[in-house]
Each structure stands twice: as C-alpha cells, then as structure tokens.
C-alpha cells in the first residue's frame, strides 16, 4: 500500500527510465487518484538500439522514442508529461544552475509532496546521476519546512555495499499489467530483453517476478 501524496513529481532523463524503475509506482498513484507529473529531460536521442536491419536512424530515433514515451504514459495512466528538451548524454555538461532552475521551476509550480528521481552518484548512467544532483540541489535550497520528500533510485553494482538496503519498497504487483504494457511501449529499448523476461515471469523465476512486483527507493536526507 503506497502512502497517499498531495502531488508526485517524477524526474528522469530518458524515455523508459520511468517504466524500468517506477512504472508500477506511477500506475498505482494514478489508480489512487494522486496527481502525478513526469518531467522527462531528453528524448533519448543517443539510444543505440536501431536494429539490424535497422528500424530507425540517428535522426529519426527521437520521434520514435517520443511516441513510445507518450504510449508508455498512456499505459500507466499518466496524463501530465513534460518533455524538457535537453539532449541525451549531455546533462552532466549543462550549466548546473540552468538545471537547478529547471527543477526548481517544476517544484515551484507543482508543489509536490514527493519527488522521485535518480541517486546523484549510484545511478550508473551519467545523465541519471546529473539529474539526481540537480534535483537534490534544487530541493536543498528550499526552506526545510517546505521541502518535498525525495526518493532516489540507485542501481550501481555496489549500491547495497555503499548505502545499504533501500528505505522504501513499493509492492506494485497489482499494477504489473500496466508496467508490462509501459515496457512494451518502449519497444525500441525493450524488444531485446522483454521476451526473456516474459519467459522468466511465466516460469515463476523469483528474481524476475520481484523485479516486476516491487520497486525500491532510497529516501534522501537533507542537511
């Protein structure tokens, strides 16, 4: 059972980040009637999966991934999607103040009670970490009594060794169908892994089912 929230703001850099790590959580909040916004910073322009034979090229991929993102949001029931117009794989090189302002403007407008983003150092992809850094800095600068709670996703191979087990585990088995539909919507990114996952789910593979049915987050502690 997820806690009721006033508004949830999800901030990730790539179309599909929301579906891999948080689709069950997003779909469950939608079912609970919690207002939820997803700010997706890029269109995954630098994605490597073009197929062979190719279904896309470097210049057509962004439009394909944009449509996949819209379809995934439909699958999760999410209606407030913000596409923020940055370029894939450049987040860490952006002006940090521009990023902090982007995050602060979203938070000011939406006054979320909960923000979900990536861990600032343990989220593997440089765009992930840079997104987490900007979001945490924006929230850090707020008066302490106005700050939303911030959940961060971490999946570096050393995560548990470095920061222990996740603080929050959402049990979202009830939203599994929507999560699978969202993952399927991101076909350009998931067509290589989903058939294998589907086999494992069908075979009651516990690790695969846990990945589908639970979503784990760390709660960031502000100074």
């Amino acid at each position, binding site marked *: 059972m997820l806690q009721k929230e006033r508004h949830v703001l999800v901030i990730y850099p790539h179309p599909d980040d929301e579906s891999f790590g948080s689709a069950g959580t997003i779909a469950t909040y939608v079912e609970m009637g919690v207002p939820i916004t997803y700010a997706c910073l890029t269109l995954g322009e630098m994605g*490597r*999966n073009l197929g*062979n034979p190719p279904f896309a*090229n*470097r*210049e057509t991929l962004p439009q394909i991934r944009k449509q996949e993102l819209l379809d995934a949001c439909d699958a999760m029931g999410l209606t407030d999607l913000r596409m923020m117009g940055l370029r894939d*794989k450049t987040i860490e090189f952006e002006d940090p103040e521009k990023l902090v302002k982007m995050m602060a403007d979203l938070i000011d407008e939406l006054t979320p009670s909960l923000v979900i983003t990536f861990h600032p150092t343990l989220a593997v*992809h440089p765009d992930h970490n840079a997104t987490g850094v900007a979001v945490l800095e924006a929230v850090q600068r707020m008066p302490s009594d106005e700050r939303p709670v911030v959940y961060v996703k971490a999946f570096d191979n050393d995560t548990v060794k470095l920061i222990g087990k996740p603080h929050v585990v959402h049990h979202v088995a009830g939203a599994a169908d929507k999560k699978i539909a969202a993952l399927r919507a991101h076909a350009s990114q998931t067509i*290589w892994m989903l058939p294998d996952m589907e086999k494992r789910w069908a075979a009651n593979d516990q690790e695969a089912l846990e990945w589908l049915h639970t979503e784990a987050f760390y709660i960031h502690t502000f100074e």
Partner: protein
Amino acid sequence: MQTVEVNHLQELLDSFATKDVYIHLETTNGSYASHFQEGFFNAGAFIRNIVIRYELGKVTGDSPHRVGLKMPSGWIYAQGITHYTLDEHNRLLMAGLGPDGKLAVALEISETPFAY
C-alpha cells in the same frame, strides 16, 4: 538505412565534396558498458553540427567499411560503417550497426544543420 553499396555511397560522398557541410560524428560503447562488464574501458566521442568542407571523401574496404574525409588541413574518418541512407532532407546518414542492432559509430553529412 540499407547496407552499404560502395559505388552508390561513393557517389553520395562526392556530391557533398567542396561544399560547407554540417557533420555529426559519434562512436560509442553505450553508457552501460562498464556496468554490465566490470572493468570495461568505456570510451567514445561525439561531435554534432560542426561545419567543415572536404575536398575528397572516400568509402573503402569490405564491410564494415571505413569512410574518410580529407580537408585542406585535416581529416575526419569513421570505421565500422555498415548502413547508410540519404534521408528526405537530403542528409547522408551513415552508421555502423553491430549484429545485435546497436549503433557503434555514426557519420552524418548535411548541408543544413541537424536538430539540436
């Protein structure tokens, strides 16, 4: 994109020679390479919308091909090119796709700027 047909690609490279053109050049192993394979040395490079003028462009070798552009005082080349297309905006898009369908290298030439 289709697999490289050397004579046709050579004609297209010739058609952009001695013109000011925008270049996209990229090599990549993917951002997750050292996550999935510990110790993997992940290297790559990316430039986009750099304007150059080349005097000689050449595609050579068996697939995967190499494509080189000779400029008055410099060079650009890409190796591993497998596919190409001239898109509806008259941009020459070349890419090296592995058997797994993942892009490893891209070289693109256009008389108009690429989107951001």
